[in-house]
């Protein structure tokens, strides 16, 4: 029983991180139909920047905020410089470019910081909380993961559902041409979508780094899990990203806990296949709208 509870708690915390990165993938996919394979690497590079800042004695929370801001700028830059010029050509081109960016970012990080793994500090203690007299596999830092990703999710939902900026962003994603005819600056909003995805990716990096071997490749597997989560959630819905993240996190946690951690990536693959066979459009995807 204790094992089950601990595995579940671990899965919950990991699931929230996958949800954050899945949200980044969703923000970009719904607006531009591009799967950003560099999303994890972008989070990796911003986390290395955080590591540098911390190494120079910058206080943790300042570094944290600075890196979210850097993620914002990096996302916007990638869209403007690499993705925008490819608009109107084959849909595959920007996807290939994101794969190229992934390779470049990992190469750059390897050159600057080395390829061996190092440590990254957590915002809060990583030793398990004590409930009654039992120590559980859920730390203060896990609570922080839970809260920060929930804040990110709620902020995203409020933005999309309750603000006119969010209305513009949704309209631009659904129908760029009509939105432009209504005076909406669609290009600017697409850039903003990539920038917000950059923030979500940076947050994911900061949350993963303390619990993994922090190297230029530490986000690769996380991206695979986040991609699984995003597909389960339908690739278009922030709520879907959250639920998909939790399903993925719990599933691979059970696989790791009961079958062995080496099987976790395989577990994600099986989950992805089952999800695609059972509901190809994703759990939270709306049926395609009838266009008349």
């Amino acid at each position, binding site marked *: 029983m204790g094992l089950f509870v601990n595995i579940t708690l671990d899965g919950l915390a990991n699931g929230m991180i996958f949800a954050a990165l899945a949200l980044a993938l969703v923000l970009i996919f719904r607006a531009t139909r591009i799967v950003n394979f560099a999303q994890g690497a972008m989070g990796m590079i911003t986390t290395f920047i955080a590591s540098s800042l911390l190494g120079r004695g910058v206080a943790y929370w300042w570094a944290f905020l600075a890196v979210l801001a850097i993620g914002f700028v990096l996302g916007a830059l990638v869209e403007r410089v690499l993705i925008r010029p490819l608009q109107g050509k084959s849909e595959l081109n920007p996807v290939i470019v994101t794969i190229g960016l992934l390779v470049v970012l990992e190469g750059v990080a390897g050159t600057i910081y080395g390829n061996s793994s190092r440590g990254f500090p957590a915002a809060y203690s990583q030793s398990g909380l004590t409930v009654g007299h039992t120590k559980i596999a859920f730390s203060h830092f896990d609570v922080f993961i839970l809260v920060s990703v929930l804040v990110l999710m709620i902020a995203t939902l409020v933005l999309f559902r309750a603000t006119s900026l969010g209305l513009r962003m949704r309209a631009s994603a659904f129908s760029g*041409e*009509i939105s432009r005819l209504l005076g909406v600056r669609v290009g600017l909003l697409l850039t903003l979508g990539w920038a917000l995805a950059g923030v979500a990716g940076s947050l994911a990096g900061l949350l993963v780094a303390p619990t993994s071997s922090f190297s230029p490749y530490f986000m690769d597997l996380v991206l695979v899990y986040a991609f699984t989560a995003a597909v389960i959630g339908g690739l278009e819905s922030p709520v879907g990203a959250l639920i998909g993240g939790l399903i993925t996190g719990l599933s691979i946690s059970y696989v790791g806990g009961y079958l062995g951690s080496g099987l976790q990536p395989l577990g994600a693959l099986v989950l992805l296949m089952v999800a695609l066979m059972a509901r190809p459009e994703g759990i939270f995807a*709306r049926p395609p*709208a009838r266009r008349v």
Partner: protein
Amino acid sequence: MSYGAIEALRSVTLTARPGAITAILGANGAGKTTLLRTISGLVKPRAGTVRFSGHELLGRAVEDIARQGVAHVPEGRGVIAELTVEENLRLATLWSMGRRERQGAIEATFELFPRLSGFRRRHASTLSGGERQMLVIGRALISRPRLLLLDEPSLGLAPLVTAQLMVLLRDQTEGTDMTVVLVEQNARSALSVSQHAVVLNLGEVVVSDDAATIAADSGLRHHYLGF
């Protein structure tokens, strides 16, 4: 602004008066849709000029042209199906109105189309063809455009709905300074509400005259308008 003068396509020159409806007629492929898409900036022509109330529109971004007061209702009912009816309307007011003015404009649109007011929070994808057409026309009118471009609003609509739409269009135009350019294959119903009409064929103007004169010319009707 006293009038909107438009030049596009292969030396297509036409003048549309404010407070009046100018019909652009002609068969498929005559260049009617291209004409509208050129004016609103969706199509960039290789040469020529598009001038609207003294400003050159050519080369400007679609959204900037919209903000000049040009409302283009494209062919095939451009509702954003994934947004609600009210969100579709609100979207068109965001650049031009404050919060209070916006709410008033939305209510006024629902008064104009009472049928839509029951569907405020429904996704536009659930509307019928006629309701979608009401929504896009309401959405175009809500921003109080100076130039309204309508591309085949009668397409796929029942004759009665088309007739109601045309009357509404005339009522909304008369006595205002809005210039309406109405592209139609349904020449008969377009001529019934227009003051002026232009017949296009293969990208060139065949005739440009009073709507009543064109409607009375049986040879022209037979040749180009199919009735």
